[in-house]
């Protein structure tokens, strides 16, 4: 695994302080920082300002593929092994709706999982991490070269960071 870049890692106890720091960092032109939080928080998400996750497209296309696969499989197999059951037509679409419905959900759900894994992996940035941020702290890691550190450190401290440390 690639070593994370050097930078500053700040720990916050208060959400409004962390949100203030995120906004200030963005105003300074920083975009490559990482925010850690123990639970999802809309204020943080809004301050970071990501667009809606593209995972939903995976859900849509997975669901459509599952539905199409359900109808295609049942119809093709019925004609490939043509045996009349209970006097019903070979390609009886109505009972096949059940199979198509279940496959819509199955493939849609699995595709959503794949989408989540893919996008989390693609948007992953190697960054320093403080284990307290899965407990009760909000963490912000700002990768920055040595000459910019004093300004960033001051920003993080004035916004209310409980601790700011240099990570190399």
């Amino acid at each position, binding site marked *: 695994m690639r070593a994370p870049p050097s930078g500053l890692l700040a720990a916050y106890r208060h959400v409004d302080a962390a949100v203030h720091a995120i906004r200030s960092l963005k105003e300074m032109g920083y975009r490559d920082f990482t925010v850690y939080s*123990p*639970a999802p928080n809309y204020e943080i998400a809004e301050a970071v300002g990501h667009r809606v996750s593209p995972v939903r497209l995976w859900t849509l296309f997975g669901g459509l593929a599952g539905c199409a696969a359900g109808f295609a499989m049942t119809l093709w197999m019925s004609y490939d092994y043509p045996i009349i059951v209970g006097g019903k037509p070979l390609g009886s679409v109505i009972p096949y709706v059940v199979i198509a419905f*279940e496959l819509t959900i*199955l493939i849609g759900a699995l595709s959503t999982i794949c989408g989540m894994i893919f996008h989390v992996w693609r948007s992953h940035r190697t960054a320093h991490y403080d*284990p307290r941020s899965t407990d*009760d702290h909000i963490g912000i890691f700002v990768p920055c070269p040595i000459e910019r550190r004093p300004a960033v450190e001051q920003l993080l401290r004035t916004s209310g960071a409980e601790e700011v440390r240099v990570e190399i």
Partner: protein
Amino acid sequence: MATIAKPEAPRAPPTYAEITRDISATLGNPSRGYYILLGGVLLVLACGVGALLYQVRVGMGVAGYTPPVMWGVYITTFVFWVGIAHCGTLISAILYLFRSAWRTAVYRTAEAMTVFAVMTAGLFPLIHVGRIWYAYWLIPYPNQRQLWVNFKSPLLWDVFAVTTYLIVSTTFLIVGLIPDVASVRDVATGWRKKLYRITALGWRGTDQQWRHYLRGYLYLAAFATPLVLSVHSVVSWDFAMSIVPGWHTTIFAPYFVAGAIYSGLAMVITLLVPLRKVFRVERYITVEHFDNLAKLILLTGLIVGYAYLIEFFMAWYSGNAFERASFWNRAFGDYWWASWTMLICNGFLPYLLFFPKIRRNIPALFLLSLFINLGMWFERFVIIVVSLSFEYEPFAMGHYTPSWVEWTILAGSFAWFFMWFLLFAKNFPTVSITEVKEIIPMPRKGKAHT
């Protein structure tokens, strides 16, 4: 005599650190009592496996099947366990979409229960078919005989519905567990730390991770919601699509879904009452949670009671002699005891929940949950066995008595379910750390903006 729980004094909500600490503490080293309980469960499971091996060795003759009753305890138990599973998805997915805050403390237990109940249910069609080694014939796969499965059969719909349910509910449980496992990883020590480091899948709670995770979780919940409604509908069509009196009715799908959620909620209470005591999580799973669960039981119980009533009414109103005879037999025939157990446990007892004192009395709720589950097992027994034993031709009617092999396998299924639950409860958080945190506002430095 059971005591009425006193209204709890308002307490400050737990802090984030307390939540992590309290819930991680449930994962410590198990006590001797845990091992004794697990040992007992494994012993019963061994008896069940022994009975199954005996049936496999000797043949299906050791089950009590007597024509025309060729679906007995195994199919009854299959439907029972699939039903139990439903409540987990109701709480974890449907209430999630409704943004119901109280679900956060109880949903993990319910969701784990769902997965283990489907794992148990899935065994029974295989046990029932006898030649377990041919079970893969149920799956459409290219084969030398160039055969494909019959998709017009509700039994095949069942294969797809139950398999989908198992896969989707398991993934939903695992996805929900990831942030929690990461929280536990960061406070654990020893071999547990290694276990959680692997199972947390690199979760750190970054902004990007939450961004994709929340969106994915939302869509999984949106998929799980129609799934839960479809699975028990499909199970009900195993019966409703045939022309057996007592089965061939359009009310079956909603009737089965309501019954499934009803029995599942009762099982959640059966599991939560000892769990909150043993793990000392009374602060998180409060009387309010039980009150809400009891209200849901009451609602679904009313639907089930209505379905019982309307079944009898329609049998009379239809004017169909076979339907009338079937329902008369149900109430006053050979199996009257099973029908009345079902009616009393499911049709009458839940009305006690109209009284808030009973809804908030935990020992009473626990007792009631056991009766409801007993009643729900008998409901499936009545629908399946009693209807089959009394069809059209008097000379083709029969009486089925379950054999010891079937009872032992039934007991083994409970042991299988509780074994998984016990193993899960001691190794993974049974109360969601992240979601409990989510409903508690993060501390603020300045005045909160509302």
